[in-house]
């Protein structure tokens, strides 16, 4: 790895630019450089690893012990990446990508435009919006946020902490807290009972997958140590200046718990603002209840030369993100003439075989942890758009009375999706609410149009931007 220190060190052109240094991005860069492809990896964070392996290169033994084997397993990938020939710039924000693969990158208060003959978007996932009443109160965070605090700062919450929602991450976080001897007040499991029935056809695949033993052990251990309320709905956070209690119903009985921290989680979804901004075609996936970029087996999107891999393509987890990153890098290497057809076929076949057990396990997880329908769209007294503070009731009324057809029309009425997060926290909920009220599929409703810059950049940085052929504000056109 050639660790770059500033934008000045960036060349104007690379054969491959990878956006994101998580499992998919690192695996792709390793494979591409092995084939002699001149590769640059850009990442927004201060160190490699992405979210799943955050701070892996600086983790203390105690943190590794608390975070568990899967996390520690990321160290080898990180080491291989560090030993690869890829150039890498940390704290680099990609705020623009065009169909001719020109990237706007900012770093340390400066910005620059560079071009990749191929671009791989490996920007991962973000947590699915969980628009319940009170989710904006200080003290309410995502389970992912708690993991980040644990990985990067060795910080834990307490003493009265409640986890609410559904999905593997919820149980993993609980087990990590237990490993650190930090007590949890309760887990509010929102998984609907009927999920089990829907998941059963995929049980054999799951049992044959590496996820089975791990998951079973995790859940058993946590259940023994923590009070778990099952079949939870009507979830709401309450408090004035910060969260003070959570109210919910468990199997039909009402409960209220006083707490300091409420962590929400019901799955993750691809972060797709960058791909949307360049006009990649998307399809609605009813199984994972989110959008997926349409891509070939090798990860090429509808825009030639732009590829996607990892959880930014579909939610398959860290192990499959590695396979996906490598697969995309093979495709890219072949398209650049860096490997021949025979080597390509051979390596692809090998990858497919190795990844199969993991894929079979995911179908079960998707169905077992399918979010509760009522949590996908906002309750009447919940904010749907956190930035512009649009209530669920306002959203419902406006869609109903003004016969709103789609999210972009809604922007004009409510400003939802127009705040600083650029729709990342409300896009899915808004699309699904409109779809529900119109009685059509989310596919027919569409999503917010996303325009560059997809990350904040100062006017000064744009004004000072210079390239051979364009200057300053022209770059945004």
């Amino acid at each position: 790895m050639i660790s770059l220190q500033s934008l000045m060190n960036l060349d104007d052109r690379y054969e491959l630019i990878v956006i994101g240094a998580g499992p998919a991005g690192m695996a792709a860069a390793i494979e591409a450089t092995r084939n002699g492809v001149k590769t640059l990896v850009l990442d927004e964070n201060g160190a490699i690893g992405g979210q799943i392996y955050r701070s892996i290169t600086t983790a203390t033994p105690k943190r590794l012990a608390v975070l568990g084997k899967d996390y520690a397993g990321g160290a080898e990938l990180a080491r291989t990446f560090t030993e690869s020939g890829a150039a890498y710039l940390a704290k680099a924000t990609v705020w623009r990508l065009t169909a001719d693969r020109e990237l706007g990158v900012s770093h340390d208060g400066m910005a620059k435009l560079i071009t990749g003959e191929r671009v791989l978007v490996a920007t991962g996932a973000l947590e699915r919006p969980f628009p319940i009443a009170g989710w904006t109160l200080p003290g309410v965070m995502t389970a992912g946020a708690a993991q980040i605090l644990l990985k990067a700062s060795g910080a834990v919450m307490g003493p009265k902490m409640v986890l609410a929602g559904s999905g593997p991450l919820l149980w993993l976080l609980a087990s990590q807290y237990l490993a650190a001897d930090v007590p949890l007040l309760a887990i509010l499991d929102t998984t609907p009972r009927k999920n089990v029935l829907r998941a059963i056809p995929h049980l054999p695949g799951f049992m044959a997958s590496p996820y089975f033993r791990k998951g079973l052990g995790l859940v058993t251990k946590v259940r023994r140590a923590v009070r778990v309320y099952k079949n939870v709905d009507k979830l709401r956070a309450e408090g004035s200046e910060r969260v003070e209690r959570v109210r919910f119903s468990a199997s039909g009985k009402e409960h209220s718990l006083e707490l300091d921290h409420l962590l929400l989680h019901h799955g993750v979804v691809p972060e797709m603002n960058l791909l949307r901004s360049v006009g990649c075609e998307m399809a609605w996936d009813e199984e994972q209840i989110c959008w997926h970029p349409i891509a070939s087996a090798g990860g090429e999107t509808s825009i030639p030369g732009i590829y996607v891999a990892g959880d930014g393509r579909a939610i398959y987890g860290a192990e499959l993100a590695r396979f996906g990153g490598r697969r995309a890098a093979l495709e890219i290497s072949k398209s650049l003439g860096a490997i021949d057809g025979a080597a390509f076929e051979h390596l692809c076949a090998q990858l497919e075989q190795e990844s199969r057990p993991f894929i079979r396990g995911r179908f079960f997880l998707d169905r077992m942890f399918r979010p509760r329908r009522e949590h996908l769209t906002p309750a009447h007294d919940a904010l749907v758009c956190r930035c512009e503070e649009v209530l669920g009731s306002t959203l419902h009324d406006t869609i109903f009375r003004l016969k709103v057809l789609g999210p972009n029309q809604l922007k004009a009425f409510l400003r939802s999706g127009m705040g600083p997060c650029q729709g990342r926290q409300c896009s899915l909920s808004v699309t699904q609410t409109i779809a529900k009220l119109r009685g059509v599929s989310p596919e027919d409703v569409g999503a917010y149009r996303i325009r560059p810059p997809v990350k904040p950049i100062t006017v000064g940085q744009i004004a000072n931007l210079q390239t051979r052929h364009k200057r300053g504000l022209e770059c945004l056109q």
Partner: protein
Amino acid sequence: MLRRLDDFSTQTVRISIDDRTVEVQVGDSVAAALLLSGVTTTRTTVVSGAPRAPYCMMGVCFECLVTIDGVANRQACMVKVEKGMNVRTQIDRHPGRTT
């Protein structure tokens, strides 16, 4: 309140949060430093003045906007602490859009 596990990393730096000097660990994001220093509200919203605090810690919710070394609306979760950094929360006692 957040607390730190008994860890082995002891490299610390001093930063200022709303004119208060606090000691934080190298590697902390500003958002983590704020939470670990007992700050519960890091900004009030421009629409209604409601209190907000870091929510996602990974740069996608934009709730943790604070002023860092005089530059407003920085994402506290995406900036690592540095020695002598001056952090100010963005709490407005008289909220409301002024356009």
